[in-house]
Structure formats: structure tokens, C-alpha cells
């Protein structure tokens, strides 16, 4: 599963470090302690920057680096499509063999296809992507930023 591409991103991460943004989130993978702090800066409907700091395994670190590569500069709708495609690949339990179309969308991120066979590592690969999704939602719902999380039945 450790493709050369993954190791490269791990050893030389792209866009690492925290820079300005409209929203910041902190996500943890409770089963292994991987952590990421991630900020999103939107320039209108374009992803202006995704900056991050964190600790974790090669998979989670490389995945954040790939995310930065792929999403920064993209239009939100396109970025979301990339995120969904990556999610689909990671949840495929090794059953998706990325084709050219997918490779077009995911670029380096297709290297994570092998990781999808290891459920315990899928969470690592998705950590930064889930954080990005969360931070983006917050950035867009500024200044309120609080979705209704109560719910439940009133007696």
C-alpha cells in the first residue's frame, strides 16, 4: 500500500503549516491518535488556501499534502466532486481499480487505492478530507457557523 507517491508526499508535504483562513477545525482519529488542525480560506467560490498542521502516520500526512495539491485553486463545486470521488475510492474496500477518468479527477490521490483494502487505515487517509469538508461548511456558514445539533424527541 505504500506507493512511492505516498512516501514522497509524506517526506515532503505540500502546503504544510497554518496560514490565514475563515475557519479552523481540529479533527482526531480516536483509534490511533492522528490529529489535524486545518484552515480553509475561500476567495469567493474558489478554494483560496488549505493550510494544516498535524501529527500522524504517513497515510494521514500524505493525504493532507495531496489534498492541498488537488483542492487549492479549484472552484468549490469541483473541489467537492474531487472530495466525493476520493471518498468513494477509499470506501471501496479495494474493489475499485481507478480508471483513466478517475485518475483525471484524483491525480496523485489514486495512489491511495491500495489503502482502501485496510479499513483501519481508511480513517487515516480520510482524516484531512473530513476536516476540509467540515471547515469549508463552517467557512461558508460564517458568521453563524452553528448548525442545529440538538434534535431528539421532546416528551
Amino acid at each position, binding site marked *: 500500500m505504500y506507493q512511492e507517491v505516498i512516501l514522497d508526499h509524506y517526506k515532503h508535504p505540500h502546503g504544510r503549516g497554518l496560514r490565514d483562513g475563515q475557519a479552523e477545525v481540529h479533527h482526531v482519529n480516536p483509534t490511533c491518535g492522528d490529529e489535524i488542525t486545518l484552515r480553509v480560506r475561500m476567495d469567493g467560490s474558489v478554494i483560496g488556501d488549505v493550510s494544516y498542521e498535524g501529527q500522524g502516520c504517513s497515510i494521514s500526512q500524505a493525504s493532507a499534502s495531496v489534498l492541498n495539491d488537488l483542492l487549492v485553486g479549484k472552484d468549490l463545486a469541483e473541489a467537492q466532486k474531487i472530495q466525493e470521488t476520493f471518498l468513494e475510492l477509499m470506501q471501496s474496500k479495494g474493489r475499485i481499480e481507478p480508471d483513466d477518468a478517475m485518475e483525471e479527477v484524483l491525480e496523485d490521490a489514486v495512489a491511495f487505492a491500495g489503502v482502501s483494502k485496510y479499513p*483501519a487505515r481508511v480513517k487515516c487517509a480520510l482524516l484531512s478530507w473530513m476536516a476540509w469538508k467540515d471547515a469549508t461548511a463552517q467557512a461558508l456558514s460564517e458568521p453563524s457557523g452553528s448548525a442545529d445539533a440538538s434534535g431528539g424527541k421532546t416528551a
Partner: protein
Amino acid sequence: MTSTSSAGRVPAGLLDTEAIRKDFPVLDRLVHDGKKLVYLDNAATSQKPRQVLDTLNEYYERHNANVHRGVHVLAEEATALYEGARDKVAAFINAPSRDEVIFTKNASESLNLVANMLGWADEPYRVDSDTEIVITEMEHHSNIVPWQLLSQRTGAKLKWFGLTDDGRLDLSDIEQIITEKTKIVSFVLVSNILGTVNPVEAIVRRAQDVGALVLIDASQAAPHMVLDVQALGADFVAFTGHKMLGPTGIGVLWGRQELLEDLPPFLGGGEMIETVSMHSSTYAPAPHKFEAGTPPIAQAVGLGAAVDYLSAIGMDRIAAHEHALTEYAVGRLLEVPSLRIIGPTTAEDRGAAISFTLGDIHPHDVGQVLDEQGIAVRVGHHCARPVCLRYGIPATTRASFYLYSTPAEVDALVEGLEQVRNFFG
């Protein structure tokens, strides 16, 4: 066992028990110097098919590891098997989400779990001294004692539905019993002592009208009929693996997702946390929040195999088999002089457990003399002593059937009871 029914009516709708029985090694057991076992104690626990035992062996011989935290092959496999069992159980009960299926050690833990959650819950679920708890007089002790404890500890008032003379719930005073103060209504779907199948809809409707939660004890339903938690309309459903061809040591609590999110945890420990520091902890989302410690991994996997076995035959066909057999058994038992069935005397809205008394011969003696003929029934109060008190009897003898039970076994029981009568007559 080989003779055809002396009553001459061979019930229709039976399963191919000859084929099914081959899957159950224990049914070949000989007892008391060569007598063939007639196992009519299925309401206490069911026997296990070869398929379940093979699954257990394969788990231990090839895949055994602790779940959820490992990156090695065995841990991945064990986790996939354990979580796969959750998928199977979720499908079996038509749960909207797999995350609503909590594995416990038995139905009793499932029921206690809900009682404890409600005691520690915030509003609007909190059970306290201003509130009421409703159960029924036909509950298993496992659905009585947790509520007595909760009532003692919180000051909440415990109320219950009584029983009619023919073994059904008396719902005539439902408006007085379930009120605006009621926080939880917990009742049995199929009684383990009377065999009664209870009218879920009427109770759920009233509970919903007053905003009370509903917990259904489906321990005697899940093994025997189609169990659809969405159709039931309850908030929680509890049942136990060992009565439905599964191993001992595994139970299930199904609960509506939003409730599982809102309600506090029960047991604390490994697996149920998100993050722990010495000062405070946060909890994992359900179902893990309610599964502290190493779960009954092999047992969940075994229950998954049991559910596969049951589904392959079809729960509707199993229900039809048992219905036909129960109808036959009720008819034949009522022919036995001085036998009194405690519970419904027809097969309508009735499960396959039949309790009875035989004159004034004590059930212990009935059971013992039957046992000497190889016939295994249960005697006593069947963990439902209030029912015995209600009908003024110390105990009953109970015969209970399952998918492998046959009319010939009913006949053996009836003949055995004749011997009991001769012996103590």
C-alpha cells in the same frame, strides 16, 4: 417418537424437520440409558446448528484477534467479521441503520442498559421522582427488576398492566396507566410463560400520544417470527442470541439513532471512548458508545451465522411451522385429563411456549418423570413469578417448540404426561 399422531391430524405448513434436525448435533443425544432426547425447552434456550458451531471454530482457528484497533491481518479480519455480524443483525430486524444495533451480553443487559441510561439522562428523557415507569404483570424478571431498581433509585413510580383470566394484557385502563407522567413503557412482545403475543400497536400509540419512550422485550419473538423494528414503532427493542440458535453470551439492543446519540453511556471503558484524559473523556458515537471493553466477538459472529441460518429458512415459514405445531399441541394437551393451560388456549396471537398444570401434581414431579422418558421441559416460575401469583399457582410445566420440533415430539409429551398421571395418580 416414530408413531404417527394418535390424534390423527397431521398439521399442515410444517418445515422439513428431518433435514433441519441433521444440522443440530445435540438432537441425536441419547439420555437415561438410550432414550432419545425430546428437547422441548426452547424458550429457555435453543440448540445450535452445525453452521453456527463451524463459524465459531473458524473464527477461533483462523481469525481471532481483538477488534477495532489493529493494523494486522487478524485484527482486520476479526473486525470485519464482528462488524459484518452487526450488518446481518441490522438486516434481520430491518433496522434503518447498522449503527443502531448494540451488542450486549444478553437481553437482560440490554434491558438494564436502557433503564440505566434513562436514570442518568438529561431532560426530556430523565426518569426521576416526578415521573412514571410502566411495565406489565407478564414480564420476565429481567424486565421487572431493572425497573424496580430504577424506581427505588430515582423515586419514579412503577406501574403495570394486569392480566385477564385468559392470559392476555388487560388494557382497559390504558389511559390511567400510561399518562403524561410516563417516561418509559417497557413490555414483552411474546410472553415466555404464557405464550401470549401482545398488541404492540395499541400500547405504542398511547405511549407516543403522551411522549413516552417504548422498549419492547423481543427475547421470545426474535427467534420465532419476522421482527421488523420499524414496523413495531418502538424506540428500543431487546433480544438475546442464545434463544435464536446463537451462542450464549450475546444479546442485542436496538435503539433509534437520535436517542442513542442523546442518551448517556452505561458501562465505561475501552472501545466506547473518543478521547480520554485523566480529567475527562468524550465518547464514541453509537453503537460503540454502549460497547465498553472487548465485545463478545466470537459470539456476535456466531449470532450472525444463526441469523443467516434462520433467514435461509425464512422467518415466516418458521412462524408458520410453529403456529401449526402449537395448534396441534394445544389440541392434544387439552385432551389430557386434569391438564390446565396457563395462557391462551387457542393458537391465535400465541407463541410456541405452552405452560400448564396437571391436577395437583407439582411441576417438579411432572418434569422429573418426563425427564426419565427423555423429554426435556422446564418447570418452575420461568422467571415470571408475578404470573404464577396472578393465577394462584406455585409453578407451571412448560413445553416450548422451535423450528426443529415435530408432531411426534408433541405426541411423546402427551404420552409422557399419561405416565406422570399414572405414577402420581
